[in-house]
């Protein structure tokens, strides 16, 4: 870090923080043993299967892993199309956020 950077308050990120961030990412993938490519493939297959039963917005589908303690959780957020109108008749609007844990 140069003197000028210090003077202007521009600080380099601490290497311990970089180490922690890198580890957080690498450990999630080590633990579930699924590559980003495989995850994409799984997402496409999920869309195909669910589309057979419910009309969904394929572009809005998000499949991610979350971590709490040593538990990994696969979370799929799948926006459903057309459900809003029907449910709004009953006074509830829930078109998005039909997320489920798998």
């Amino acid at each position, binding site marked *: 870090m140069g003197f000028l950077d210090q003077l202007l308050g521009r600080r380099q990120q601490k290497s311990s923080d970089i180490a922690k961030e890198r*580890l957080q990412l690498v450990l999630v993938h080590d633990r579930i043993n699924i590559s980003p490519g495989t995850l994409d493939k799984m997402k496409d297959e999920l869309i195909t299967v669910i589309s057979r039963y419910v009309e969904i917005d394929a572009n809005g589908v998000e499949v991610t892993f979350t971590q709490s303690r*040593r538990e990994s959780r696969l979370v799929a957020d799948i926006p459903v199309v057309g459900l809003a109108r029907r449910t709004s008749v009953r006074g509830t609007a829930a078109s998005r956020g039909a997320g489920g844990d798998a």
Partner: protein
Amino acid sequence: MSATVITITSGKGGVGKTTATANLGVALAMLSQRVVAIDADIGLRNLDVVLGLENRIVYDLVDAIEGHCRLRQALIRDKRLSELYLLPAAQTRDKNAVSPEQMIELCDQLRPDFDFILIDSPAGIEQGYRNAVAPADKVIIITTPEVSAVRDADRIVGLVEADEKGPASLVINRLNPDMVRRGQMLSTEDVVELLAIDLLGIVPEDKEIIISTNRGMPVAMDGKAASGQAFRNIAGRLMGQNIPLTPLKGSPGVLDRLSRFIRG
């Protein structure tokens, strides 16, 4: 009474498994426990030199398992302490000379005569690791605050859980408090958060470790060394003593020294 079998492992090599095994063995024996330390690193024997017992080996682990000697004959007694024994690894064989079932049987034979059986695991996650973990009642995972060691430790945490030997407990070795304070090293909190297992102890980086290993006198025998105290604390915790985990003190900064000078 039956011994508790504790396996000390890490995944990555060179993080301090053998040093920790030797020092926990010494520290437990100093607390009047009957201890046997088993070197399960067949082909890469080292616990003997760290304990300073290399000149007294006649028989080894594989001799005992294959029946070339009685188990008692392969045990080397550490004369500096009343009840510390070493079961050395074979040096001219490989990991496949022993099976996990044979290790379980061996430990079952030792259990009635001891309070603690410590097993020094080889690095890696293959046959040697499987042999070392098979008889374990408890697993201690050693890591250093470095990305490669923490990543490998995480693999072991998962394997120990899959083997239903969990939850493992964690020892962080070679922590440098000054570097942590400057943001140049992962902190205890970082490592515990990443691995999400219980912390059993923190051992500071200490040049006394190298000096004591040169002499074959484990640092836990030294009353003054900070790392020796850390190992004695871990031994106490293994016996169920309530010894709080205190944050490590770094070397005093300029202000500390100045204020001490002023106060006289």
